């Protein structure tokens, strides 16, 4: 096969960190090439250089034999490089065709464009109505819009950044079919992911980055997921462990929880029932945007609901404020670290005070005991191995994984009766993710009820005792995790009750 894109000695340094150091590798035509690495390994910087968003400090690229130095994404697109970002840039209130027009330099007339969208979508079996409003589409369909937007340019190289993090297993299958077909037609695909099983089934070749350097190239079909992970992390990994404990009495009861979403494109919660027992880890799966945020806000107390809808240890808490719930022992950790779980410009000890005040007695008669708050922050930093020079550093100066350890640690160390976490390891490196999962399992073992909302099915299968799926604001019957198959889970995520399938 002929080489399409060749990278030679690419280096890019930011103040205090070398994001990419002397990175060289080739991508062949028609190859699905995986770029593997932990968060902070330099994957996104590298991709940004290829897509013209960042200029390398040194090194060269050649595309189809020609020197290639894009100054901006427009040049990259003109040269035949397209990219689907992890976070979509679509306007909810506009139609598919309107959104696609916005991204084009010389947009054809609307009717012609709609026809081309239909052509591409039938050719690649990606059904999509050009006149549909984005706000009404599922996440998988939105991703289709982004992919079709790229395919309309007939790219030679398609870059995909963590494309499956928001998809159901069935949607992943459809996506893989499309990608294989594209590769078959000669398009090269640079596929960024940290999901190793996927890479093993899809990709022809993998380049592994660690701390900005290429540490290995391998054929992923011939390596085990564990080998790939250890190359990525550079050390042997341990899976989280837990002694099998019998669940105790019910700690969290949710009865008929319905709530309107505060967001016009959000999802209303519809009659959710759930019991979680002491010592149990309850997993809540589902594709993002199916009511996870609303569910979380109803439990944290940021969006109070009717009094009897949520009970903790037999006490009705549905209409209580966040701090009243903390007093009773219902703690939460939201998904978004910066700006929701933590205040970016405040120090770690101020962030410790933020939720720790009630249960850790960090104030007396309204006056803050700063020494106690600092001691609490120190305790979190030590117990959870948060890498920071001092608790006086701001939350935003920490890396994602370290801040997430801090946020989870802050709640775990308050010895909750019930802890609800949303996406606890999203965007966190493998070592930190393992530490967080272990901490959550330890907490359950100590007798707390733990609820983990996540889109990472592998994570849920690994840590939870029972699993339920949130779909369109409704929660499926929870099922014991070890009796579920991937296929059943996929159907539950698509909105079908697993009972119908297994019956």
């Amino acid at each position, binding site marked *: 096969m002929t080489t399409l894109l060749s990278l030679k000695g690419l280096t890019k340094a930011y103040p205090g960190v070398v994001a990419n150091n002397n990175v060289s590798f080739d991508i062949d035509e028609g190859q699905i090439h995986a770029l593997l690495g932990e968060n902070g390994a330099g994957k996104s910087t590298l991709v940004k250089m290829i897509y013209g968003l960042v200029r390398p400090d040194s090194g060269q690229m050649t595309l189809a034999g020609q020197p290639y130095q894009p100054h901006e994404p427009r040049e990259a697109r003109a040269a035949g490089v397209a990219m689907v970002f992890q976070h979509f840039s679509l306007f909810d209130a506009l139609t598919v065709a309107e959104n696609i027009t916005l991204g084009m330099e010389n947009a054809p007339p609307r009717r012609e464009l709609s026809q081309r969208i239909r052509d591409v979508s039938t050719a690649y079996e990606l059904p999509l109505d050009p006149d549909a409003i984005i706000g009404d589409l599922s996440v998988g369909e939105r991703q289709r819009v982004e992919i079709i937007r790229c395919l309309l340019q007939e790219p030679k190289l398609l870059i995909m950044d963590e494309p499956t993090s928001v998809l159901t297993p069935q949607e992943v299958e459809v996506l893989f079919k499309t990608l294989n077909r594209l590769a078959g037609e000669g398009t090269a695909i640079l596929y960024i992911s940290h999901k190793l099983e996927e890479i093993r089934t899809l990709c022809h070749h993998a380049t592994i980055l660690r701390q900005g350097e290429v540490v290995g190239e391998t054929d992923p079909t011939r390596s085990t997921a564990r080998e790939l992970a250890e190359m990525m992390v550079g050390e042997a990994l341990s899976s989280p462990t837990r002694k099998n404990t019998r669940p105790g009495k019910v700690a969290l009861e949710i009865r008929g929880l319905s709530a309107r979403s505060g967001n016009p494109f959000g999802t209303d919660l519809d009659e959710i029932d759930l019991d979680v027992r002491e010592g149990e880890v309850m997993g809540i799966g589902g594709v993002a945007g199916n009511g996870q945020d609303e569910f979380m806000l109803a439990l944290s107390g940021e969006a109070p609901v009717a009094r009897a809808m949520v009970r903790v240890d037999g006490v009705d808490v549905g209409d209580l404020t966040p701090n009243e719930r903390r007093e009773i022992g219902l703690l939460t950790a939201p998904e978004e670290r910066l700006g929701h779980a933590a205040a970016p410009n405040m120090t770690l000890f101020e962030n410790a005070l933020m*939720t720790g005040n009630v249960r850790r007695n960090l104030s007396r008669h309204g006056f803050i005991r700063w020494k106690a708050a600092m001691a609490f922050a120190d305790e979190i930093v030590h117990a959870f191995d948060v890498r920071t020079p001092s608790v006086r550093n701001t939350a935003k100066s920490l890396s994602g994984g370290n801040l997430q350890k801090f946020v989870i640690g802050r709640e775990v160390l308050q010895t909750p009766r019930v802890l609800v976490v949303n996406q606890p390891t999203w965007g966190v490196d493998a070592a930190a993710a393992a530490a967080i999962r272990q901490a959550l399992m330890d907490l359950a073992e100590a007798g707390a009820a733990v609820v983990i909302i996540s889109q990472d099915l592998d994570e849920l299968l690994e840590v939870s005792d029972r699993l339920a799926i949130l779909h369109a604001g409704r929660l499926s019957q929870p099922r014991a995790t070890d009796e579920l198959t991937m296929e059943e889970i996929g159907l539950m995520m698509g909105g079908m009750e697993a009972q119908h399938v297994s019956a």
Partner: protein
Amino acid sequence: MFRLEARPQPSRFWIAVTPILAVIATMIAGGLMFAVLGKDPLASIRMIFWDPLMGEYAFYYRGQLLTKAGPLILIAIGLSIGFRAGIWNIGAEGQYIIGAICGAGVALAAYPVQAWYIFPLMVLAGGLGGWAWGMIPAILRNRFGTNEILVSLMLVYVAQHLLSSMALGLMRNPEGMGFPGSRNLQQYPSAANPELIAGTGIHWGVVAAFLSVIVAYVFMSRHMTGFQIRLMGESPRAATFAGVIPKRVVTFTLGLSGALAGLAGLFEVSGPAGQITIDFASGYGFTAIIVAFLGRLHPIGIMLGGLLMALTYVGGNLVQQQAGLPAAAIQAFQGMLLFFLLAFDLLSAYRVRLVKREHR
């Protein structure tokens, strides 16, 4: 070519140094402006910054300094607490006027009774009046989601018209031979707010201003409510998650800043101004916004900022009288101070790097 790079943490050094840089830059740019106006720049700058403190007649101007700084500091302290929460009360001028009207109203209603309780009642009325005026934007925002910036600003104009009406109508001095304006409270001992130590310019308003600095410092750095206010300004969603109830913060900060502005108005009308007149409002409420930012919304900084701003007022008057500079030039000079301060603010959050121009 210069390039800005975000600092991971704001630099403490630059936070402390930028106000000084801003003052120096204002002196240079202001000096240029004075030169263009045909005045000796060095002499003018000296007259503004030096003469009121150390010049021949400094004994007179030093007193004025505290008299001017008092209301600026008192109002700015109140505003800064709201600004920290991201709640923008820019109608302090109106709250100041209403405080003065309410306080003076108590005195004029009691006249000519002499009793010890009249002045405390006036203080109460002044504070309540400002508080009530501040509650209007608060209630409208909480109920209907209106923008407190617009509402509080518009209420300044309402207050100004109310002031004219009072000076010409209800509160006009019946023995004033038909001239607009109320009785002079300085000549009514039970209602007067006199200079407490002769020659210093210190009256009860100045005392209240310095007290407010101390209380605000302790409140914002040690009290849970102060922490929640800062949290809301930093990150509203994190604040809600931490249990802060935004509507309560809106009510509290707008009420508090209104009350402090009202008190400043009361102390002014019963002291240095003496009476309700059409031109009683002198812009303290607006200048206090500059003072709050000059002091970086920090109580100690506001105290220093208020003193500096008072100096430009007193010195500005001096230079107007002695060098014949127009009043507008002095206002432009004060504006430059805020401009440079905000511009140099960049240095605390970013570092400036010199880079070679990239070839395209």
